């Protein structure tokens, strides 16, 4: 699915969190959403998810305004993962996945749970309580929940935050391979620049609620005369 954002603005009282941003994410591409803390990334994702009402502007999915599409049909094709939201800790991994499979109307959900559990190496702790898992395991369960409905649009907020390098690498590889095998449009908010370089076809740089630059990673690095995306990020953030 293609995502198009037109003049999107969000004000919280007098605070301008997102200032008339415009971008397009073509179908089956991965775009990185970068920027310093408080630059409006989470608010933008919140608006894309329909959790925050924009002050003005439009969000189009496959050229249709999301306000005019059946919200529930649309949400069944979208999913989201973030380390800042969790699944109920007292429920087992299997129970959590079953609940979300049912909420998303997944057909043959038992097979889907087995499939996603094998892919993300969750099988050995499917019957364990989610609260008893390590950060890395919880992260993979959260990713499994976000893929349970085989979404056409996937929003990922810092998918490898607080993970050790080994698990972080596993998750990045998994996302990259999943994308190759599936028709999915991904918007990835991250502070890990090497992750963005590895996963994203292009990036959007935000600062103080505005888009200050966008393009492929190599284009941005060249344009700002730096050697890597991390230095490019620092230059943009500090200017």
């Amino acid at each position, binding site marked *: 699915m293609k995502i198009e954002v037109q003049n999107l603005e969000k004000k919280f009282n007098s605070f301008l969190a997102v200032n008339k941003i415009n971008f397009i994410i073509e179908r089956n591409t991965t775009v990185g959403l970068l920027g310093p803390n408080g630059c409006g990334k989470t608010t933008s994702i919140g608006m894309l998810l329909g959790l925050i009402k924009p002050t003005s502007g439009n969000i189009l999915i496959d050229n249709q305004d999301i306000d005019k599409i059946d919200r529930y*049909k649309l949400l069944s094709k979208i999913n989201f993962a973030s380390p800042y939201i969790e699944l109920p800790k007292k429920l087992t991994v299997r129970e959590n996945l079953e609940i979300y499979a049912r909420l998303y109307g997944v057909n043959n959900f038992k097979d889907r749970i087995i499939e996603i559990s094998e892919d993300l190496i969750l099988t050995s702790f499917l019957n364990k309580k989610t609260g008893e898992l390590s950060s890395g395991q919880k992260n993979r369960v959260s990713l499994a929940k976000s893929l349970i409905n085989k979404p056409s649009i996937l929003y990922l907020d810092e998918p490898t935050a607080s993970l050790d390098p080994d698990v972080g690498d596993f998750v990045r590889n998994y996302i990259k391979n999943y994308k190759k095998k599936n028709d999915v449009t991904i918007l990835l908010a991250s502070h890990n620049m090497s992750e963005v370089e590895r996963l994203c076809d292009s990036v959007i740089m935000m600062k103080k609620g505005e888009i200050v630059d966008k393009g492929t990673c190599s284009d941005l690095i060249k344009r700002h005369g730096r050697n890597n995306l991390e230095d490019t990020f620092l230059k943009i953030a500090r200017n």
Partner: protein
Amino acid sequence: MRWHKIYGLSLRHIYLIKSSFPRLLDLVYWPSIQVFLWGFIGKFFTSETAYYNDTVGIILTAAILYDFLFRSSISYNMMFLEEIWSRNFTNLFIAPIKISEIIAALTFTAIIRTLVGLIPATLVAIPLFGVSIFNLGPPLVLLLLALYIFGVSLDLLVTSGLIRFGPSFENIAWASLFFLAPLGCIYYPIEILPNWLQIVAKGLPLVHIFEEMRNILINDVVNYYVILKAISISSLYFFFGVGIFYLSYYGAKIKGTLINIGE
């Protein structure tokens, strides 16, 4: 002991209370509610000791019915709070589930939780005190229905507050029913209230439900008009609650609290 450390830690809680109106309200109204409730109960038993032939039976039946309302309300709010505590709130609101489906699921699960808790207590009261709420006969079902509809209505108002103000509204959730207890005339007749409070109390279904409960047990007569009135008032509160819930949901979308509900 270092006083600056004690002061520092105290400040952490004082700042929290200062910044949260629901927390402040919670501190203030509990003692007042206790004074009101026990004041009216005391006044009634002092002046009207001969009112009941079967004091234990009527008080216990009232307590069980009130607990039915209380449990259903707490069950509903607990389920909503669980989503906040477990940080699952955002997952739920980005799933393709309608508000009406959320309300229906919570209402359905709350009645199961309530009955699981209440049935043993009701059965225990029979051999232990010789009191059975089943003495109310078929009208019991209608009285419970009126109580449940009102309980769900209160829950909708409280969960609206939770969506709008976040977990700081939690204390109100726990105490919402105690707030109404003195006006509900659960353990005493409405005449015990001052005239001006009687007018307010009649706007609640609780007065009609508990007055009718006493009427059935004392006079052995059923006034279906009063029961119907209680169900109608409860239903009005229910529709009001649904409206407020939707308003609160859209308010939270504007305020952005659905994505980062926290302290």
